[in-house]
């Protein structure tokens, strides 16, 4: 065993891991909240089993929460923990390979009995086998210590044992010089009606804190100073929550009522659940009987004049394909959110992946173009949800917003954007000044048709899924009209490029290598590029929030670099799309399909290899 591995640091990655029932998600979010209030920059990533309660004590049942806090800007939850809290042997087994030698591991020795480490799949007792020799291991019988601390409060054994996560949290709070008041406030809110439980939890928290203060395992506590953040009011947001709020903001700004038609599916359900809490904004949240009813009810609401949304994950998006085509044909405003997860089929429901891009672009019959955008971080979900709604309403087109399990469940401090600081949204509506309004009459610049909906006198009209006459919207099978409409539908989407930001480059603005990424990997690719810059490598990063249409300056950006490396969490979907759209460039690719985010080291390795190759 080495000596204390943690010195004063400007960043630290902590992973809390234990059984599904051990309350690790709570522990992690508490540490996150406390650190956020201290002004640290933060990124988090929860990681839990697909089962509600996977079998206790097994690796399959381990639930983890990784949090990265820093004084500098943080873009990812971190490649590997500086501190691993392992509440049982399985948690150690599941996470050990991610922890670098020399780092700290805090262990609840009460759950490292023979039956425990056997069940976890260790061949030998890890505490004595020497396997942990090169780590800084802190052993504490947390369960016993908690039980002892809570004696006399009148709690049953189960409730006492349940509080051990607070004990662990207390220890970690001490290690990083965090105050307890945020968590105490939280506990009071949560257990206000159960005074014994409340007392037990607070007592356990303090006991852990004091225990850490007492024992000799830690040579000192560390401090992570506040990050240098833009001034403003902050809160910590999860991606899915931010998505929901972005839509609420868009509804308010556009003067439209919000309609959500959705069917629960991991990892998208939280958006539905968050919006269901906000009926006070007139948000009509409709839990449909399936994904098809989710999108078609939204299409109905769009026809009737609402800001219509449907949310889902990969398999659900597959079910929505036919209806999405109807929205394309009827040119109604609609936002479809796909929180991507590992596929194909049911795949890896709780793991992250970026493998629905092709489906988003092409998963429908016929030539059926939609706008495709993606969010790059938990907080960015707010902006992109807002933007997606704006494009849909202003351009009369379905917009597909791609997020993924990683950003959806991850969290990040967010500088609250008050609605008055957001762009305006002006739905593209027909108005009385129009002479002889026709359903498929278009704005000459954007090619958006003018929305008119039931309740408006004089605009009665009929639309549907059959090919439409270019002006009246009546059914038309004539060859020329079909060819023209096919062109117009695509062109309308392409012209959205005139209304979105140009592509910006991080790192070198020109040079040897341009890394291309999209969606939820931004934190990782940016961190990797920053490393390159620090090493004076001429590497830039073009990260795409807008995929269809591509930003107007895309080709210009690409042409400034000798090589292009497209990094994605799939087998190469954006790269295929780019080859189709901008065939004049040569693309190399770096792909990972493990249900996990990129590690920064992997990216740097790939970048270096590409730089060296010829």
């Amino acid at each position, binding site marked *: 065993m080495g000596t204390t591995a943690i010195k004063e640091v400007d960043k630290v990655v902590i992973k809390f891991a234990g059984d599904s029932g051990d309350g690790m998600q709570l522990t992690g979010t508490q540490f996150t*909240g406390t650190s956020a*209030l201290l*002004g640290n920059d933060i990124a988090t990533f929860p990681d839990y089993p697909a089962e509600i309660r996977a079998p206790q004590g097994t690796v399959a049942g381990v639930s983890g929460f990784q949090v990265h806090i820093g004084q500098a800007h943080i873009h990812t939850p971190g490649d590997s923990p500086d501190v691993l809290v392992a509440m049982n042997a399985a948690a150690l087994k599941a996470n050990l390979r991610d922890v670098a030698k020399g780092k700290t591991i805090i262990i609840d020795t009460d759950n490292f009995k023979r039956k425990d480490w056997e069940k976890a799949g260790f061949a030998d007792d890890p505490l004595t086998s020497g396997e942990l020799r090169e780590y800084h291991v802190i052993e504490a019988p947390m369960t016993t210590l908690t039980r002892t601390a809570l004696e006399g409060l009148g709690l049953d054994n189960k409730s006492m044992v349940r509080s051990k996560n607070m004990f662990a949290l207390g220890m970690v709070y001490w290690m990083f010089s965090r105050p307890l008041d945020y968590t105490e406030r939280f506990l009071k809110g949560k257990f206000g009606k159960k005074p014994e439980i409340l007392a037990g939890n607070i007592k356990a928290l303090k006991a852990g804190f004091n225990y850490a203060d007492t024992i000799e395992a830690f040579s000192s506590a560390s401090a992570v100073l*506040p990050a240098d953040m*833009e*001034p*403003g*009011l*902050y*809160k*910590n947001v999860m991606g899915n929550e931010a998505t929901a*709020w972005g839509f*609420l903001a868009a509804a*308010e700004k556009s003067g439209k*009522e919000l*309609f959500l*038609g959705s069917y629960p599916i991991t990892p998208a359900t939280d958006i539905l659940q968050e919006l269901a809490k*906000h*009926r*006070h*904004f*007139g948000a*009509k949240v*409709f839990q*449909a*009987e399936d994904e*098809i*009813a989710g999108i*078609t*009810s939204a*299409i*109905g*609401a*769009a*026809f*009737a*004049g*609402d800001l*219509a949304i449907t949310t889902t994950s990969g398999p659900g998006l597959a079910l929505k394909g036919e*209806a999405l085509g*109807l929205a394309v044909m009827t040119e109604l405003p609609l936002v479809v959110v796909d929180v991507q997860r590992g596929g194909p089929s049911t795949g890896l429901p709780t793991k992250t992946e970026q493998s629905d891009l092709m489906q988003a672009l092409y998963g429908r019959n016929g030539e059926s173009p939609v706008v495709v955008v993606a969010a790059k971080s938990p907080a960015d979900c707010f902006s992109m949800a807002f933007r997606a709604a704006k494009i849909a309403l202003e351009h009369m087109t379905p917009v597909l917003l791609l997020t993924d399990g990683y950003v959806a469940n991850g969290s990040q401090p967010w*500088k*609250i954007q*008050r*609605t*008055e600081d957001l762009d305006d949204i002006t739905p593209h509506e027909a108005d009385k000044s129009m002479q002889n309004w026709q359903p498929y009459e278009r704005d000459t610049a954007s090619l958006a048709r003018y929305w008119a909906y*039931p*309740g*408006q*006198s*004089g*605009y*009665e*009209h*009929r*639309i*549907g*899924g*059959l090919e439409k006459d270019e002006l009246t919207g*009546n059914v038309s099978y004539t060859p020329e009209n079909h060819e023209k409409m096919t062109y117009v539908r695509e062109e309308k989407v392409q012209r959205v490029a005139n209304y979105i930001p140009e592509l910006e480059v991080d790192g070198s603005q020109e040079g040897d290598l341009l890394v291309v990424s999209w969606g939820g990997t931004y934190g990782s690719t940016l961190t990797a590029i920053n490393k390159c810059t620090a090493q004076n490598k001429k590497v830039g990063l073009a990260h795409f929030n807008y995929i269809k249409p591509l930003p107007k300056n895309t080709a210009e950006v690409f042409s400034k670099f000798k090589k292009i490396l497209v990094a994605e969490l799939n087998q190469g979907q954006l790269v295929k799309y780019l080859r189709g759209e901008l065939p004049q460039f040569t693309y190399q690719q770096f792909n990972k399909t493990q249900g996990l985010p990129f590690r920064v080291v992997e990216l740097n390795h790939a970048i270096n290899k590409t730089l060296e190759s010829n």
Partner: protein
Amino acid sequence: MSVETLEYTAKDFSSDQEVKWCPGCGDYAILKAVQKAMPLIGRKREDIVFVSGIGCSSRFPYYMDTYGFHSIHGRAPAIATGVKLANPNLSVWQITGDGDALAIGGNHFIHLIRRNVSINVLLFNNRIYGLTKGQFSPTTNLGQSTKSSPQGTIDNPFNPGELVLGANGHFFARATDTNAKALTAILVEAEKHRGASIIEILQNCVIFNKDIFSDYTAKDVKLDNQVHVEHGKPMIFGANSDKGLKLNGFKLEIVTIGEDGITEDDLLVHDAHEEDNTLHMMLAKLQMPVVTGIIRSYGEDSFEMRMKKQVEEVEKNSPFKSVNDLLESGETWEIK
């Protein structure tokens, strides 16, 4: 073209699109009946929406000078639900066929009924897929040979009425394309009903399933083979108005007034409003005679009413008056 008075006539609801059904198709009569019903429901034209799926019947919205949506196969109930929730003030009508509603659209159909959203559903039951040229549907008679069942079907059909009631339906009526007057009257009642109103219309597809209902609708037999029920009235039928329905244990019995000492007082009196649907199920199930009219009409708060109430209540009690309030709620911190 904007008629600003409610003194509509049927013609005000006829659009400029040419009607494209086969000559002789029962759909024509239904279109007429609907156009006749519209001036009677007291709604402005711009507040009326017709939503359909795909099928011959589903072309219907094109012919109505109201708002209309000819959507995709089977999904009209969900689209109509979205329309109604977006704007509960609208009068929403769904047009559907037996294939559209009960084959591909079966799930949305039963969920619309269960939720009890105020939508009037006109189910054009011709017991065949018309538009795709003659395959059997979920209501095709057992054993019937069709384009896709050359040796006869082998699956039992649905009885739409039973399915509606089994799905907790609160309003079910049956009509025929040959009795436009009765249909028009039912439509007006359907619109008044809060919640989902399902009207099965026995419709003649002259091309692919000609005269499949003639046992019920042919001039010479219709009075004997149809019982038209009305709430509060005894269940009398027959060319001579001398037949009636009577309860016998778990079953309905057909009796003749004047025979075996039967008088009108022995007959069942229709109660469409009763919460328990046992009688309605019996009526819906009856094969010969077939029952037409409003079989069940039980009133209760509809889905969109409950949703509205909930929204209002939460709005009243919520601390958040604007999105900013929400965004700035919870744990926040300031960086200066």
